[in-house]
């Protein structure tokens, strides 16, 4: 069953109105963030919303424009900072939290940091709230480091980290390679200095959680009640949002403090880089439907037997635990090979699609699907079992998969975490969409 014409797609887009979901995400297969080498951050208080309709007080890093002096709203997670290998990085931090919230700071696991300004803290230098110094404006602490290796890193608060990380003070740090690796193609993208780290799209998977009681206690200034020994999260986040909020685009106006989405898409045969970060304090085993991934790096270091060997110790699996404060880089791909039937529903004289598994070309679908009234059609079922296919859908079905893409749930396998404070579905659910080769992913 081949795809029907594009007119129906456009009609559905119009119907969808103000909720653009899968049609042209602005992600461009690249990670949204701040690119540069000098960043000015301000710790601020704000609010986030969760998919069960609740809202929590949050402390986040906001971007401060050094020229205009204007500071944006705090964001959860903090801004993804994109820097370049061997280029010195400077990050300044000021504190706009109320004095009783404490000092703030940033630590950068894996980097050799020099901190100046502010006051000495337990892990690094910290900066006190601007309100403590009336009339003196903002104090500032500066962190400088030169990333020696490309890769995926994390930054987190270094002050009363259990509380401040819970409140939202963390973000991703991405270090791009300084040059094309030996034997590489300058037109392609590489995560590390080796050709085996090549990827076509990259997506951030930054895992965190929240215990609403802590946020209520902060909101009500019941500092003495905060007790992490009874920690019991009931909300979980990927890139700062729960499902299904994470399906929406980056920077949607109705999630002003949660700018990042999680909506990976690809075509068969492409390589997707997943920058996987454990931002909170709990371990989340993320399971990837559709195919296995290859773990090529941990903590910004290739799994390698020696210099120049590349990720020759990479391991494959479909599930990986996020480790608090640690990072991993995964490469995921899908071709639908060896399924035993033609995933496009071709007849034998149809041409091959890119990366199509030729021995299955034209092979018939192996079973009879039950009639429509014997089954429940999922929201993302196109009505056809074929990639790019479309079929009759029951009345009332939203037709959310007009491109006939293959949806794979990438989710936590601690299934309790697929809820948002007692509401199913929520939490750590995301979908990778493998689109038909003809469907543009901009």
């Amino acid at each position: 069953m081949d795809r029907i014409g594009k007119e129906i797609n456009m009609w559905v887009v119009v119907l969808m109105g103000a909720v653009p979901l899968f049609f042209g995400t602005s992600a461009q297969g690249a990670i949204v963030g701040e690119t540069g080498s000098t960043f000015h951050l301000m710790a601020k208080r704000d609010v986030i919303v969760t998919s069960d309709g609740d809202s929590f007080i949050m402390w986040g890093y906001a971007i401060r424009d050094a020229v205009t002096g204007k500071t944006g709203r705090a964001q959860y997670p903090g801004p993804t900072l994109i820097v370049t290998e061997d280029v010195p990085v400077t990050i300044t931090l000021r504190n706009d939290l109320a004095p009783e919230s404490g000092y703030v700071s940033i630590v950068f696991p894996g980097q050799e940091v020099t901190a100046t300004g502010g006051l000495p803290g337990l892990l690094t230098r910290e900066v006190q709230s601007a309100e403590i110094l009336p009339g003196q404006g903002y104090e500032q602490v500066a962190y400088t480091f030169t990333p020696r290796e490309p890769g995926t890193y994390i930054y987190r608060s270094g002050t009363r980290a259990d509380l401040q990380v819970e409140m939202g003070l963390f973000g991703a740090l991405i270090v791009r390679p300084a040059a094309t690796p030996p034997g590489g193609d300058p037109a392609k993208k590489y995560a590390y200095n080796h050709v085996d780290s090549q990827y076509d799209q990259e997506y951030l998977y930054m895992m965190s959680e929240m215990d609403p009681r802590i946020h209520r206690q902060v909101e009500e200034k019941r500092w003495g009640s905060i007790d992490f020994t009874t920690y019991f999260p009931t909300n979980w986040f990927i890139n700062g949002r729960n499902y299904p909020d994470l399906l929406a685009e980056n920077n949607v106006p109705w999630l002003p403090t949660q700018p990042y989405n999680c909506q990976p898409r690809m075509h068969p045969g492409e390589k997707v880089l997943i920058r996987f970060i454990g931002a909170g304090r709990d371990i989340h085993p993320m399971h990837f439907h559709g195919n296995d991934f290859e773990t090529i790096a941990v903590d910004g270091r290739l799994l390698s037997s020696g210099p120049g060997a590349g990720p020759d110790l990479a391991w494959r699996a479909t599930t990986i635990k996020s480790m608090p404060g640690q990072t991993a880089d995964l490469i995921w791909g899908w071709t639908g090979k060896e399924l035993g039937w033609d995933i496009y529903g071709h007849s034998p004289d149809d041409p091959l699609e890119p990366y199509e598994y030729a021995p299955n070309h034209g092979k018939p679908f192996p079973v009879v699907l039950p009639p429509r009234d014997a089954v429940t059609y999922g929201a993302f079922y196109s009505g056809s079992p074929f990639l790019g296919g479309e079929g009759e859908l029951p009345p009332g079905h939203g037709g959310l998969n007009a491109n006939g893409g293959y949806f794979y749930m990438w989710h936590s396998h601690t299934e309790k975490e697929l809820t948002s404070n007692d509401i199913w579905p929520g939490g750590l659910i995301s979908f990778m969409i493998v689109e038909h080769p003809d469907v543009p992913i901009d």
Partner: protein
Amino acid sequence: MMKRGTRYGSMMVLLALFVCLWVVTASADVHVQCPGDTNGDGISEDPNIVCRHITGGDGYTKMADGLDLYIFSFGDADGVPVERVIADRTLKAQMPAPTIVVKQGQELYLTMTNVGMVVRPDLFDPHTVHWHGFPNAAPIFDGLPEPSPSANMGNSFTYYYNAVVPGTYFYHCHVEAAEHMQMGMVGNLWVTPAQDGQSIGGFTKFAYNDGDGSTGYDVAYPLLLTGFDSFFHIASDTVQALPFAAMFDEYPMINGRGYPDTINPNNILNQEGFAAQITPTIITASTGQRILLRVCNISTTHQYSFATTLGVPMKVVARGAALLRGPDGKDTSMEVNVLNVGGGQDYDVILDTSGVAPGTYFLYTTDLANLSNGKQERGGIMTEIVINPL
């Protein structure tokens, strides 16, 4: 339970789109698809085709402290005439679900018939089968209800798998995963390698096509770790609101049983007198033999670490149904005394008992609080390894 939470404000748009897509119409159609089955016994005459028939429904299991808990799971319907399936096989869910084994290169036609939930006639949940870890899967057979059709009550869906990649997997229902998996819809599944039968390094059975016998074994046991939250199961049984946010597994189990039921070689009968728990976990070998453990964890709330008292390292030869060899063949297998298994992870572990004195040893969780059957101590994730003299 099909529970839809209320969302507020600007989420109503998405809500309107997602809710009420579960269009359900009652229809009764039990239908087994098994190519090459000429006499209707559910077995294909084609040696390359394996047909299995399981039910999706409810039942009961008995915890090691005597507590009876309501469950959802899959049951056995192999060879049952289609007109008898609903009549005979309701309330017969097994925990774990029936074990599925195929050989590399075989095609599996797995029919799952949703026989409904007898104890909860108010529920109309579909069920699915997700083969966890199947490489290059297509959504139509992936068992994820969101991008596929899932079988309504009284109906069957036949899943097709071309089993080309050997290894240790597992399967479970993916409808409302937090609920259905907590309720117990999980089972063991593995694919034996094409290398089986060849003699390499003194073995004829292997976990993978290792080429050198490094995954060869003498005896093999599944080790399906999971847990039950008794409050959740009791709420489901008594038509109460399901406590998702409070979910916490306090009955940790191996293959559906807590210690000492893990070492009981007999079936455990549930409160209906039905043998719902038919997978003992007593591990037996002769000294010098190699034991293969096919390990997975499907708890919806916990990760579990485990160790043995054998005094020999556990050799992890594969994870996620992939041999631990780097892209250019480097040996990346691991030798550990303690292995942590997160939800959704599977591992192949070889215990080489060379030099181990005959006797009884223990496999147990080092997250020691999980050596409990709820509020009863000295239970939980533990079993015994009996090493016999040669």
